[in-house]
């Protein structure tokens, strides 16, 4: 069949099962968008306020579904605006395909209007990228892009297409997508050795991360923890893999992790690290991390083994395959002594104090949880509110805690919420944000309004850039450099200006009232929640510290 390069892009997207694209048009993308006009019955295009919002939306879509998120942008500034979004997806191993247009091939390298070498710009933040200036290469590039994005450790891939290619007519053959690379399986001998280590360990812990979430390994992990009677502690990327109330799930680990998780890991004689990369927010002191323990690392990415912390044993395989295969090999046992020790730490751990006269972050999040459906999707921005959300949200289902873990991108939340809501229209989407993060990309309210997306943005407004403010308070002698923002934004009015609803709350009773209203409202809602600026994220371990340096108040 004869068609233009642009039509071919649409056909190739359909071939991959893509029905939703986030993006923003522009000069060099005219042909691409002209084809989308023709395919509008088959491919839904969500226009955002800014390309960064589109990239975060594609990312949120991918996180909520496990499918590849697709974003499209024009050359030059359009492509550049995707960069933060692509980097965010890259750091958290989120499958994404970014399609950018570039100037016509004859203008490449001549500093043409809106020309940018985006394949060069995105080299270090993509798994791979393609520059297509010959229509013959177009089908292969797009099929490869989808294959690479979903193979092994997932991640973003960019395809840059010159404008002349999108306009050229040629014949197209729908051969179908390329098969995704098969995941490596766990080595049987090493499995036996690890099972033996688990069986003879007195004080084991499973330290698990985003890899378990990405491989849908939650149910298997629960079974393993039950059978071998082991505690588990998770990184922020694995929030929601196991239930918050589950006895063996000790909570978040690392810099702002629970006392119990951090003490348990520190005292463990065996650390089973599953789908996690010993990042500096967890293994803050890489030399002392788990120094009393034998460490076993299971990861799909060979380069993660021994990258940050030297381990005693490792398996490079699909982490779900590992968990499922090790379950029959471990002894059923009861580690009563170990859990008694853990309980003592739990009894003495940090517990925030309630106060109904103002808004306490833990109570606010508790209230949100008690009033929302169990399968709600929570999306955060970055900062104090993000950690409070990770610490206190009581019911998170898999793929339902969407946060920028690795890159820590402020402004991620609104776009990602839009992507999540588009992906899961039947689910409640709650966007938990701070006044700092929200100011970065609140412009996406227009996207939420246009598409009538009932996303509730709960804005934790403490009138400071809270996380940095907290660090300046503790480590910089209260020299609050550029963190007391003094903004006069009237969130209710701004929300209304965008065509959304806006509410305000300064105590729990007020919040309950407006949140109940928001849950019934049809379009997007903002709720400004006034928080004291001295509220801290606790516990905290300073950079490079260990559990012994933990600050509790």
């Amino acid at each position, binding site marked *: 069949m004869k068609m233009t390069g642009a039509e071919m892009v649409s056909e190739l997207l359909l071939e991959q099962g893509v029905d939703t694209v986030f993006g923003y048009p522009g000069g060099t993308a005219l042909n691409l968008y002209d084809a989308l006009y023709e395919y509008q019955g088959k491919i839904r295009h969500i226009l955002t306020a800014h390309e960064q919002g589109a990239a975060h939306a594609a990312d949120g879509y991918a996180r909520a579904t496990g499918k590849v998120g697709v974003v499209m942008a024009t050359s030059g500034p359009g492509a550049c605006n995707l960069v933060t979004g692509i980097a965010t997806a890259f750091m958290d191993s989120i499958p994404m395909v970014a399609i950018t247009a570039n100037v016509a091939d004859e203008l490449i390298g001549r500093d043409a209007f809106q020309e940018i070498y985006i*394949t*060069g710009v995105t*080299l*270090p933040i993509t*798994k*791979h990228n393609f*520059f297509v200036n010959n229509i013959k290469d177009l089908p292969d590039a797009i099929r*490869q892009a989808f294959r*690479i994005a979903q193979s*092994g450790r997932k991640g973003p891939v960019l395809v840059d297409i010159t404008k002349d290619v999108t306009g050229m007519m040629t014949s197209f053959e729908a051969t179908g997508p390329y098969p995704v690379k098969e995941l*490596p399986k766990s080595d049987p001998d090493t499995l036996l050795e690890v099972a033996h280590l688990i069986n003879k360990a007195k004080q084991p812990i499973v330290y698990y991360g985003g890899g378990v979430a990405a491989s849908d390994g939650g149910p298997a992990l629960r079974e393993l923890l039950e059978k071998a009677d082991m505690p588990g502690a998770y990184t922020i990327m694995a929030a929601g893999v196991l239930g918050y109330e589950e006895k063996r799930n000790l909570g978040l680990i690392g810099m702002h992790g629970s006392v119990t998780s951090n003490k348990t890991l520190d005292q463990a004689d065996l650390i089973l690290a599953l789908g996690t990369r010993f990042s500096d927010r967890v293994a803050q002191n890489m030399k002392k991390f788990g120094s009393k323990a034998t460490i076993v690392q299971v990861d799909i*990415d*060979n*380069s993660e*083994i*021994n*990258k940050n912390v*030297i381990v005693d044993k490792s398996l490079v395989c699909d982490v779900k395959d590992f968990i499922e295969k090790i379950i029959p090999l471990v002894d059923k046992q009861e580690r009563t002594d170990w859990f008694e020790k853990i309980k003592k730490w739990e009894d003495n751990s940090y517990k925030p104090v309630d106060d109904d006269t103002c808004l306490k972050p833990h109570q606010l999040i508790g209230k949100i949880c008690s009033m929302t459906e169990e399968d709600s999707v929570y999306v955060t921005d970055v900062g104090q509110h993000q950690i409070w959300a990770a610490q206190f949200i009581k019911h998170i289902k898999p793929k339902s805690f969407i946060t920028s873990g690795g890159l820590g991108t402020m402004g991620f939340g609104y776009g990602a919420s839009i992507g999540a809501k588009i992906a899961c229209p039947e689910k409640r989407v709650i966007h938990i944000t701070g006044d700092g993060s929200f100011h970065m990309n609140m412009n996406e309210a227009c996207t939420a309004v246009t598409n009538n997306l009932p996303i509730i943005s709960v804005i934790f407004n403490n009138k400071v850039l809270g996380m940095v403010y907290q660090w300046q308070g503790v480590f910089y002698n209260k020299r609050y450099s550029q963190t007391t923002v003094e903004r006069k934004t009237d969130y209710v009015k701004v929300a209304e200006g965008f065509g959304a609803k806006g509410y305000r709350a300064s105590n729990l009773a007020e919040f309950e009232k407006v949140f109940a209203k928001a849950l019934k409202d049809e379009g997007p809602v903002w709720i400004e929640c006034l928080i004291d600026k001295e509220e801290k994220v606790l516990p905290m371990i300073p950079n490079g510290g260990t559990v012994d340096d933990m600050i509790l108040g």
Partner: protein
Amino acid sequence: MTLKKEVISILVDNQFNVLSRISSLIGRRGFNIDTITASATQNPDITRITIGFSGNEQSLAQILTQMAKLEIVREIYVLDPNESVFRELLLIKMKADKSNRGAIIEIVDIYRAKIIDLSKDSMIIELTGAPEKIDGFMKMLDCYEMVEFCRTGVTGIHRGVREYTRFED
């Protein structure tokens, strides 16, 4: 910690900006490389990149596994010094006149180097050999006045026919 010198051979797809993909990774991860060379192979679709690298065991494993993840990398392996030959080419320009020309020629002869250009007050010498030999030669020339030099960086190949260890991503 003492750094060990290794030579890594990488077979990559011969395509647009393949060298920038490799060097971008080196820059991003802060790998401590000494030399990098790229050259054709018998297969026009494949380019060979040879990297001289200084590091410990952990950083060597990192450069191998991180490189192996690049889509363009088909094969990557460390050249075992006991089973490989390494060569590098040196071009060095020395200030030399009738007072010291003879002395320099003596060193050139001992190292079996070649004088490829000669003028009244300078000469250009060519030497091919293992990097250590070139280091030694340059040390010997230290006491004479050098104008400039360039070294191609190490390239190497295994002796005999063997299977390589593959690093799969």
